[in-house]
């Protein structure tokens, strides 16, 4: 066990994966000698050489196209997109190629070994283009897995699981927590299961669910609610695609109330899928409508970032609305 921040945990996961399997390659813009603009790939080039950790030219569509080819050949690419806001030039390679490689070829070829890492989310004064949370776009794409860790220990275990999973995984890293989240992380090699949510706090009145950095917001809201005598169950979804319906449904059937929190805009955010599915499967248990506490339907702002944010206070308001319905 060591104290690590989330970046160090990512770095440790990459190091572990590269040590254990020489087919693991890390690349992307500035990830080589420099170690990435956030330093997630620090020292990996030093340790494993220029052919296993390297800079690419500045082309996201090229990075993912290249990664798809590498995965088809049998390597285990871990491609970095410098900011999730810049994943869109690679959207075609991800949605039309990565996601459909196995299906379209009848599994003659697949890119199951591919992992795409990218920092996402607001809270760093980044404005429109250094703050986006584009995970929902990818959840509408069969063939992909989508994973979001909330803290260092989760980050290492989930990233190692993603690298080893035989399906392409998009791994969204909450960059707001890169240095802010610090915790004990096992030094050894370990994985955490994909596709399983985690119940962080048990409660009886309302279920709160979030992923990544927003787990903090619902945890704080649960504490504020507790002060007001409301007992919240707090769930970290961890994997968005395929997501853990059973854990959520079990909780919702117990509490009868659900609040979903995400940073991305509300309309067609992943909260919509959760709400739509769960109102269907848990209809008779619902005591109030499923609520979504989300970013507004605007681009991510700068000066008014605080006003945009679906923080613990907005979650608390929703909890009260839900309970008082």
């Amino acid at each position, binding site marked *: 066990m060591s104290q690590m921040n989330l970046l160090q945990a990512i770095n440790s996961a990459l190091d572990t994966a590269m040590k254990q399997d020489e*087919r693991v*390659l890390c690349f992307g813009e500035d990830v080589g*000698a420099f170690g990435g603009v956030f330093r997630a790939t620090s020292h990996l080039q030093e340790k494993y050489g220029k*052919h*296993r950790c*390297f800079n*690419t*030219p500045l*082309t996201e*569509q*090229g990075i*993912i*196209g*290249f*990664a*798809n*080819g*590498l*995965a*088809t*050949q*049998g*390597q285990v*690419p871990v491609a970095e997109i410098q900011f999730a806001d810049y994943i869109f*030039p690679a959207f*075609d*390679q991800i949605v*039309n*190629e990565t996601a*459909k490689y*196995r*299906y*379209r*070829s*009848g*599994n*003659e*070829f*697949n890119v*199951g070994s591919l992992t795409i890492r990218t920092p996402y989310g607001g809270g760093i004064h980044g404005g429109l283009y250094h703050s986006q949370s584009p995970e929902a776009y990818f959840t509408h794409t*069969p*063939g992909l*897995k989508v994973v979001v860790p909330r803290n260092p220990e989760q980050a290492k275990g989930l990233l190692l699981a993603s690298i080893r999973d*035989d*399906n392409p995984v998009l791994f969204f890293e909450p960059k707001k927590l890169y240095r802010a989240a610090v915790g004990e992380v096992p030094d050894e090699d370990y994985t955490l299961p994909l*596709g399983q949510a985690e119940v962080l706090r048990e409660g009886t009145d309302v279920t709160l669910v979030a992923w990544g950095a927003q787990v903090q917001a619902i945890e704080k809201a649960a504490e504020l609610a507790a002060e007001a005598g409301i007992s919240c169950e707090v769930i970290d979804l961890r994997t968005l695609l*395929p997501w853990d*319906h*059973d854990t959520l449904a079990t909780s919702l059937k117990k509490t009868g109330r659900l609040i979903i929190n995400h940073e991305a805009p509300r309309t067609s955010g992943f909260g919509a899928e959760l709400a739509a599915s769960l109102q269907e499967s848990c209809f008779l248990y619902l005591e109030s409508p499923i609520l979504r506490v989300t970013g507004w339907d605007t681009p991510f702002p700068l000066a008014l970032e605080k006003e945009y944010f679906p923080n613990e206070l907005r979650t608390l308001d929703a909890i009260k609305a839900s309970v008082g319905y």
Partner: protein
Amino acid sequence: MSDLRNLDVELVHQPAFLDPVTSVIPTFRLLQQDGTLYPGAQAPDMSQELALKIHDTFLFIRALDERMLASQRQGRISFYMTQTGEEASDTCSAAALDAGDVIFAQYREQGALAFRGFSVDQFMNQIFSNHKDLGKGRQMPIHYGSRELNYVTISSPLGTQIPQATGYAFGFRQSQQKQCVICYFGEGAASEGDFHAGLNMAGVLKVPVIFFCRNNGYAISTPVHEQLAGDGVAGRGPGYGLKTLRVDGNDALAVYEATRLARQMAVEEHQPVLIESMTYRLGAHSSSDDPSGYRSRKEEDQWRDKDPVARFRNWLIKQGWWTDAQDQARQAEHRKAVADAMKRAEKLDSPPLEDLFSDVYDLLPWHLQQQQQQAREHILRHPQAYPATAPRLKAAGEGKA
């Protein structure tokens, strides 16, 4: 790392703008249409066996394309694409490679696949989307692929295979295999951003890849001069750090020799190469297209006179390796083989319902299990609406019960 730009190498004090390049790169050609070599030209070292295999591939493809286009017209298949006029480009470049080299194709490269040994039944099963199709009946006709033959399954979105080829080639280099990748694409696809990404990355990362552009004059209705300015696609190669050659794509020998040399550079020196093969799509873009809307009969006829298959046959005959009589007989054999295979393929069942849900992931996640179950129940509730799957589901259900 440091800034390695050589700034002071050559200074000028007059602002001499470079002109746009129109045509400066010459075209490498060996064979004249009558089957004789140009004076001074030297035939590549090609065995009789290989030459006859190439020619046989040509004849097979002609038989296949002709029959399938007719079948489409008869409504027996929904879609087809011929490669008539372009057979030498892909077939002869593939012929210059090792069987372990990997092919990323666009869609008009059935010659390369046939040369590798894809059987007439395999072609038919794909075209008829039956349950024996290696692709499990999921893609439109002509989207072939075979792991065994190192032919990566075709994908419709244009250009996407280009950076993938670069990545695959990097993997070869990484695992120290002495192989290369060949990546085919049209001059239209070369306008996609993925072309730029793939060639640039290959130049920077130095990988064993041959980019093989079939410049056949059109992207559907769009002629080359509305597709690009400058000296074609080859004009861009050196700027990416690639070795570059323009070749007459209707000259089987020149294409073979160009690719053979390219392979050497790619495999021995990890030097990526761009070959632009100048050819012409004699047929329509696809069975959905009618070229009379955008080009003249006269132009087509001019190119029909440059037919690559005829040119190569003339050479074979001049070599004393082949005769017209043999050619007629072999054509008839291929026609029959194609017709027979078609009849077999047509009769085969479509893929089972499970293949609607398999291969999205390595295993079925809960939601796909659930959906598969829903689909099953729904189909059994309305069997008359699902003639392809309902009877088999019923049979299986009864078998179980």
